């Protein structure tokens, strides 16, 4: 079986949420000694990106994203021990701390973003909702996070994103860990004003921008 055929099978396994087929494709790829990074990038990842596009078009929903990610992970888990140095080129983007900012209890949007980030290749540390600012900074430091994302649904709580930027600066984390802000009232202008590194409009936008920001 050619690389292209295996890539196509991997993509299809993700699109049909087929865990067994995903595992089988991964094992076949190892047996046939094809390029497994190519299989991840041009097979599994293409499939999950298509699922993401269908989610964006509201033709698929969160459980579908999760089922597809589950199928993809089943295959990638088999390949990972064989990646060796190539692992650096596969999607392993580091830890991403995420939460709803102090004072705000709205979590559905944040949880959707967390799922999309996980699908994109981040190791997501989801702290939950109404998280004190100092605890968010501590989690970012303790986890050696590459990025920390805060969500605010209300104009009265988004001001805490500004205070959080100050805490990150004071603790010397700014510059080492990217800050990402989102939530219904949050805009690019607000992100610029408070000095946040990345503004995200929605879950897809967050995943795309953060992958780009981390990969450089």
């Amino acid at each position, binding site marked *: 079986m050619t690389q292209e055929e295996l890539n196509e099978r991997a993509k299809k396994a993700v699109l049909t949420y087929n865990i067994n087929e995903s595992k089988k494709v991964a094992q076949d790829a190892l047996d046939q000694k094809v390029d497994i990074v190519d299989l991840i990038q041009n097979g599994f990842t293409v499939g999950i990106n298509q699922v993401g596009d269908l989610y964006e078009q509201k033709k698929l*929903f*969160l*459980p579908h994203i999760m*089922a597809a990610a589950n199928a993809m992970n089943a295959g990638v888990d088999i390949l990972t021990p064989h990646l060796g140095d190539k692992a650096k080129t596969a999607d392993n983007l580091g830890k991403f701390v995420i939460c709803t900012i102090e004072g705000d209890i709205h979590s559905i949007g944040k949880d959707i973003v967390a799922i999309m980030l996980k699908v994109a290749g981040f190791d997501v540390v*989801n702290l939950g909702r109404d998280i004190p600012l100092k605890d968010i900074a501590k989690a970012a430091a303790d986890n050696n996070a590459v990025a920390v994302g805060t969500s605010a649904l209300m104009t009265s709580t988004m001001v805490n994103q500004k205070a959080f930027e100050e805490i990150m600066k004071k603790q010397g984390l700014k510059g080492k860990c990217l800050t990402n802000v989102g939530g219904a*009232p949050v805009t690019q*202008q607000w992100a610029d004003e408070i000095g946040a590194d990345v503004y995200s*409009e929605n879950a897809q936008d967050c995943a795309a921008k953060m992958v780009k920001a981390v990969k450089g």
Partner: protein
Amino acid sequence: MAAQEFYTRMGDGKRVTMTKEKIMADLQAGTADAADMGTIPALTADDLERLLDIICDRNRVVAVEPGNEVVLTYDIGQLDFTGDNGNSGNGVDMGRLEAALIHERALGADTFELAHSDYSIKPVKPVISMEMQTMEEIQQEIIAPFFYGAMPNMGLYYAPDGPYGNPADLMREFKIDESMQQSELAAEHLARDIEYVGNKIMAAGADGFDFDTMASAGDADFVGGLKGVEALRKANPLAYINTGMAGESVMGIHGGIEFHGKTVAGLFPHQQVKVCEEAGANVFGAVCNTNTSKSLAWNMARAVTFVKECVKQASIPVHCDLGMGVGGIPMFETPPIDAVTRASKAMVEIAKCDGV
């Protein structure tokens, strides 16, 4: 500001000036976005010209032309006065009777509602006797139709606030089947609670029930709410039942749950109204979400596109949700009056909605 520019707003309420050409470009982009997302017709050239005139009106406040006045229904009960500015209110404390009479006699409300401070079905259950007493008392004084209002708010049925597993947690652990099952159980529980609370409050003399923010916790929340509406309608054939939505599209947290054989995830206003009709609603509250990064023109054109199609498809009156962050209005605690009146006029005169 240059003479050819007009004061307008961004979706976060920021004051900006734009040329007529730029406003028209945003109107076209906004309607195209809604048409593309909802697979519905974009606004006509005449509609867009009319919207342009409304936005470019030099007056701070605009209004509908005489004869175009519509019914004004209010949600959230007394909380628009008593809530603080983190809760869409004005921080003016008053009793529920006073709030009802002020809305009726000073603000021109055509309907009003009694609401619990938590404004959700679940917390009303333990205090239903007190709610019934207050309903009876206010009904003695008020003339306008007086309803009971609450959000289905199915999030309160999930851990840590309720007995069912939280889909957000379960999906994070890839327990997708379990997540779906818990959503279904929570929806059944919600429907039972709606039936209990609804029938009690109707027995206390309520003229109807306003279900505010349906589907806020996704598609299973919507199905639970619809089943509750169905039960309430069966027991109260003459009740006035308003179903107002949480968003322009039903979030697929379950992904496959159905009402009367129809998958509800991803339904847009013109489709949402049909399932609400089927459940037994008298009035539908259409919602379109505001994008804070886009202009008032973009948001208004988009919202009017969705609501126009909804009104076209509906067999029951459509009352558009117009407030903070919905209906084209900026997302701001105190929505700017220039934007509120423009969006209201456009919804009535272009989308042809029956009420606001």
